[in-house]
């Protein structure tokens, strides 16, 4: 049993408000055989500068400290890759540090940069993330990824991360999905949605116009997961600039308030001890008393069916930002859809739906920009970027890409970037003739979840337009 003390449950507090000033990203692809990593990072930083009408040199003049998210050194065969990028960005001799928390590296990097600004150490900080997974063949890549599991207790078992992760999916599939065809189709619908939204995103690696049947016919990776249920493996970079209020308003007209919190859970899923469900503001203590009756086998929390780290980062972040009910208070979300089934698990962990009821978020149509069931705006559109399934999963950059995408909606500048034919052309693509603007109308508040593998680290970032804060300060 895990129990928390009151001190451990203190609501995190920034010593001063933190603002998101700008952000940028590179193109994403499975491989860039003719580009070095710093070229991608410079693409991202240049976009961030141009977005607020600055030259890269002008933007760099504001940066005081740098936070670099890059997870897998061994893929690139380069330790201290952060130092290489820092040098190539021309940011020496500023202080910098590398951040590594698996798939949550991007979110954790923003977490570190935000704390530097919140504490007063820096008035302006860079959070830049990237990943390079194209320098080894797939089986060596599988082994490298498996090294993010426990070296002695898991990795020697097949050297394949699927074997450690997919047993979680299996348990959720059987207990909460009840192995139903209808649940399987709901999983597939997430892939259709996210590959579909990727069609309107010039940065995205895997735009696809597919059907539920296409997903269900794609090759099995580890039952019930099929190829089209799984996220991409990508190369790319993304960055954001965070600042205190005074600096932020000097740098741009409309910076966004940023809140961020983190949670963790055991690297080795086997180590998960039972505990009571930590409740979010929109949940009640009696709500889960019959969970095991309704979903036989759902007795063990978090077991393999909940991501405790996701629950805890939402627990902290909602209280920090004043979110009472994510579906009501937020206008859209970018979730870590590593797999279709884990996307559903996350809906429950962050309170979009109660535990066991995550599928309803998709089946109700709430997760779409335009609800296909009603033809009206979806209540809480998810992953309009295409997410990890349709856009990219360049690990260290992923959580940052999500935050950049969220910010573009609140700035009402999503179409300006995504609909720019010159940008499409610069990536060697043609803007689709039927291109669709997926700007969320009147977007005020958004959320991004950055999540590591089996749930060892998760961050929850909440962005708000300063005129639409939820909490008095």
């Amino acid at each position, binding site marked *: 049993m895990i129990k928390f003390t009151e001190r451990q449950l203190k609501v995190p507090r920034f010593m001063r408000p933190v603002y998101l000033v700008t952000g940028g990203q590179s193109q994403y692809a499975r491989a860039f*055989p003719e580009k070095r990593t710093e070229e991608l990072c410079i693409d991202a930083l240049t976009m961030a500068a141009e977005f607020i009408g600055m030259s890269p040199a002008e933007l760099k003049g504001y940066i005081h400290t740098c936070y670099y998210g890059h997870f897998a050194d061994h893929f690139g065969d380069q330790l201290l890759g952060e130092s290489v990028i820092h040098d190539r960005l021309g940011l020496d001799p500023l202080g910098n540090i590398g951040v590594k928390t698996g798939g949550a590296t991007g979110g954790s990097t923003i977490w570190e940069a935000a704390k530097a600004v919140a504490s007063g150490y820096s008035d302006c900080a860079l959070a830049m993330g990237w990943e390079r997974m194209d320098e080894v063949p797939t*089986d060596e*890549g599988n*082994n490298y990824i*498996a090294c993010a599991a426990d070296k002695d207790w898991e990795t020697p078992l097949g050297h394949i*991360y699927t074997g450690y992760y997919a047993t979680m999916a299996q*348990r959720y599939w059987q207990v909460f999905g009840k192995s139903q065809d209808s649940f399987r189709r709901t999983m597939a619908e997430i892939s259709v949605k996210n590959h579909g939204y990727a069609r309107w995103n010039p940065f995205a690696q895997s735009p696809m116009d597919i059907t539920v049947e296409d997903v269900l016919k794609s090759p099995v990776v*580890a039952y019930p997961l099929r190829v089209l249920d799984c996220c991409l493996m990508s190369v790319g970079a993304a960055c954001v600039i965070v600042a205190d209020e005074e600096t932020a308003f000097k740098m741009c007209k409309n910076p966004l308030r940023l809140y961020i919190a983190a949670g963790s859970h055991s690297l080795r899923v*086997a180590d998960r001890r039972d505990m009571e469900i930590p409740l979010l503001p929109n949940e009640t203590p009696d709500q889960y008393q019959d969970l095991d009756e309704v979903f036989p086998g759902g007795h063990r929390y978090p077991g*393999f069916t909940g991501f405790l780290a996701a629950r805890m980062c939402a627990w902290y972040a909602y209280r920090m930002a004043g979110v009472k009910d994510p579906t009501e208070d937020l206008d859209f979300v970018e979730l870590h859809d590593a797999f279709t089934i884990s996307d559903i698990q996350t809906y429950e962990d962050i309170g979009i739906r109660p535990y066991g009821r995550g599928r309803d978020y998709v089946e109700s149509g709430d997760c779409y920009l335009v609800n296909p069931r009603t033809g009206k705006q979806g209540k809480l559109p998810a992953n309009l970027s295409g997410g990890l399934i349709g856009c990219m999963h360049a690990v260290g950059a992923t959580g940052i890409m999500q935050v950049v995408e969220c910010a573009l909606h609140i700035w009402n500048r999503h179409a300006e970037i995504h609909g720019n034919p010159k940008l499409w052309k610069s990536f060697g693509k043609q803007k689709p003739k039927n291109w669709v603007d997926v700007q969320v109308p009147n977007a005020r508040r958004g959320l991004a979840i950055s999540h590591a593998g089996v749930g060892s680290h998760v961050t929850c970032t909440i962005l708000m337009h300063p005129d639409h804060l939820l909490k008095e300060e």
Partner: protein
Amino acid sequence: MNNQAKVWIEKGAYKIKGEFSTPEPNTPIRRKDGKLCGVTNPRRLVHMHSYGGEAPFFEGLAQGRLLGTQCVNNKCEYKGSIYIPFRIFCPDCLAKMKIVDLTAKARKTARIYSYVVTSRTGAFNTLETPIRFIDLEFEGVSTILKSYLLVGEPEIGQRVKPVFRVKPTYTITDLAWVTADTKKPPKGFHL
């Protein structure tokens, strides 16, 4: 492999013999039109890795025993909790735990909590495919153990029992499982 890397310990330090790092020639990576884009970086490496306080668990597998640990600290709120995977220190009080033999408990109570079957593996895999990954619950144990099933098809709730590799590798792969009604151990393993 006459010159295979070997490692032993003398006076608290690693001693090594044989080949640990073998460089191989680079080759250029070119585009079809001949433009140079990069190079390959081949090499063979051997790492030395300490099991530290978990070494008894891996030695135990070689002896056909499944060892876990139990908190025996009177001051710990969770005294008596049993852990497998084997943890050296109690996750609550951080006191060193007592080693307990869970072989009999595993034979009598192990059940599959979850599983997945996959034919995909990574480089350096030594297990036969498809691998039947299983996660196991034991009565009275706080945690769950990940392993693999060698005989039978996995199902949630299914009773299984452990088998141990006859010629140990001193890794977690020395432990595998078979369905509870299995009479004859799979080749290379004993009950």
